[in-house]
């Protein structure tokens, strides 16, 4: 394997943590739709949040490939837990790249989960097409006044601080949006009800409404009017993270399917002895490995400072589609049991579906891949 000694050490830590702490808890967390604070506290102690935050800002300072390795391992335990790691990673990357020294002071709280964060982009009329957002921040003296509503926001029911994309100039299109750091306990912030989702049910998702929320001059993250670009600057890393998460779900499914096929007997022999089952397992293994290599290659491009957009979209799209198809295979290997609540593969199949949707739908990823192909040529 091409991972270096340090990356392997990190993987071992994440893998043991996932095996011993996360995976045993996943079934109950899914059933109860519960935010696992106790697991996040432990993860923070082990340094499993803010993987890329540099040492001088209080993090371990690992590269994107290491982050991808961690995401896969955590997701092998439970995708909701990995997605929390991914969210913290995005927010901390935004703070590291665009935050003022004063704003960066919140990093230790963010990566220790003492301050829970939310990334607030999506609105009712603005999903994939971010330019459609209607939330506004109007200049008011030194600061701003925020009005509008956000939808399907991860952590909205529990978060302390929101990173909110709002329109600051109605005429300027993609150059008229800005990101604000908003205290979600402030007056004028209302939280909608928690959504009940198909999968990744320990992730708390809901809406946020802002009515005349006063923001100070320090609330602006990055440049005014450049919010869209600020947001886009972490998109590649976000996609690698979700792609790795999808690989982790499928890997958990493969492990469960291999174990089950080796113990379940029909017609007097283990079902792993039937070629029909063997082909399912083989296809799962090869597609998971292919997706993993795409993810690692995309992460490596980011780390080398190369143009990674096409690779990140390919990794996200392939890994998401693969995770849905191959967890469906895992259910198939389990037969009727795989359709029953409480069996891991049933949950994995549900958990996988969203990886084709969030962090840019796989249709958008295909558009990006095609656009890159036609613009920059078929050769990479």
């Amino acid at each position, binding site marked *: 394997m091409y991972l270096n000694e340090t990356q392997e*050490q990190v993987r071992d830590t994440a893998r043991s*943590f996932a095996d011993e702490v996360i995976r045993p808890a996943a079934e109950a967390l899914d059933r109860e739709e519960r935010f696992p604070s106790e697991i996040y506290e432990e993860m923070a*102690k082990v340094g*499993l949040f803010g*993987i890329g935050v540099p*040492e001088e800002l209080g993090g371990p300072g*690992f590269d994107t490939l290491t982050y991808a390795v961690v995401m896969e391992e955590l997701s092998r335990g439970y995708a909701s837990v990995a997605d929390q790691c991914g969210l913290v990673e995005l927010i901390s990357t935004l703070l590291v790249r665009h935050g003022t020294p004063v704003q960066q002071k919140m990093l230790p709280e963010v990566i220790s989960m003492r301050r829970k964060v939310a990334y607030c982009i999506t609105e009712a009329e603005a999903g994939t097409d971010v330019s459609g957002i209607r939330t506004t921040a109007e200049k008011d003296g030194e600061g701003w006044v925020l009005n509008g509503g956000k939808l399907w926001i991860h952590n909205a029911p529990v978060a302390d601080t929101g990173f909110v994309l709002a329109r600051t100039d109605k005429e300027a299109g993609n150059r008229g949006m800005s990101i604000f750091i908003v205290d979600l306990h402030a007056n004028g912030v209302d939280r909608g009800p928690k959504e009940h989702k198909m999968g990744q049910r320990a992730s708390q998702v809901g809406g946020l409404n802002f009515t005349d929320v006063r923001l100070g001059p320090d609330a602006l993250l990055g440049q005014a009017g450049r919010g869209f670009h600020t947001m886009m600057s972490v998109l590649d890393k976000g996609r690698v993270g979700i792609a790795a998460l999808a690989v982790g779900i499928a890997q958990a499914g493969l492990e469960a399917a291999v174990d089950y096929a080796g113990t379940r007997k029909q017609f007097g022999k283990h079902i792993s002895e039937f070629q029909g089952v063997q082909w399912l397992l083989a296809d799962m293994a090869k597609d998971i490995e292919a997706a993993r290599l795409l993810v690692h290659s995309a992460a490596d491009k980011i780390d080398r400072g190369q143009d990674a957009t096409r690779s990140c979209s390919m990794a996200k799209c392939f890994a998401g589609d693969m995770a849905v198809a191959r967890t469906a295979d895992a259910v198939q290997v389990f037969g009727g049991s795989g359709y029953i609540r409480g069996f891991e593969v049933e949950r994995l199949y549900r958990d996988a579906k969203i990886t084709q949707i969030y962090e840019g739908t796989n249709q958008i990823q295909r558009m990006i891949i095609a656009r890159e192909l036609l613009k920059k040529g078929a050769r990479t």
Partner: protein
Amino acid sequence: MKVLVPVKRVIDYNIKVRVKPDGSGPDLTSVKMSMNPFDEIAVEEAVRLKEKGVVSEIVVVSIGMPQAKDTLRTALAMGADRAILIEATTDVNQDIEPLSVAKILVHIVKDENPDLIIAGKQAIDNDANATGQMLAGLLGWGQATFASAIEIADGGALVTREIDGGLQTIRVKLPAVVTADLRLNEPRYVALPNIMKAKKKPLEERPLAALGIDIAPRLKVVRTVEPVGRSAGVRVASVDELLEKLKNEAGVL
């Protein structure tokens, strides 16, 4: 107070061990290796003693392949201060026997002058359970094996040992050799920031040749076989039949 902890790189405890076709030993080619779990417990105990302020420096030492550096880095990331690797072989199949290990450790002890040595009670590969005892013998130090609790006080160590039928607490004068049993502690997860910090901690490599110790094996492995697979259970019709089988077939009553 200075503590020395010897650590061994062994086949990972999660790996299903396979025996080589010729029966000469387990197949170690391209399998995952990691720190012997009992040694991990020993490192953890040393780190906890340091966190309590009892210990000021922890030196870890490994003897074997150059790859044992990975194992030492793990110990450094757990909280050890300094590491020494004695490069003794490049053959993963060469198991260095307890007496050779103990002799090499004597050299290290003479250089380092530790007040306490905490070792794993045994390595999970050969299960020899001998190095700690031999080391204490060669040094003429006291020993406390199978420790499930260690308390340092008044120039000595109060060690609780797991023995048949209960716990025994003994007091040994320092310096001494203590070997760690399973229930001494639960080792921590290696924290990610500490993995980075460990890269900056000193790791010294020394060739075995400089010590002039012959590590040629004194033991000969005659045969290695895999454990017999578990056979299927049987249903019994009555308690009497069960008792009869336990007495006459299983021979446990």
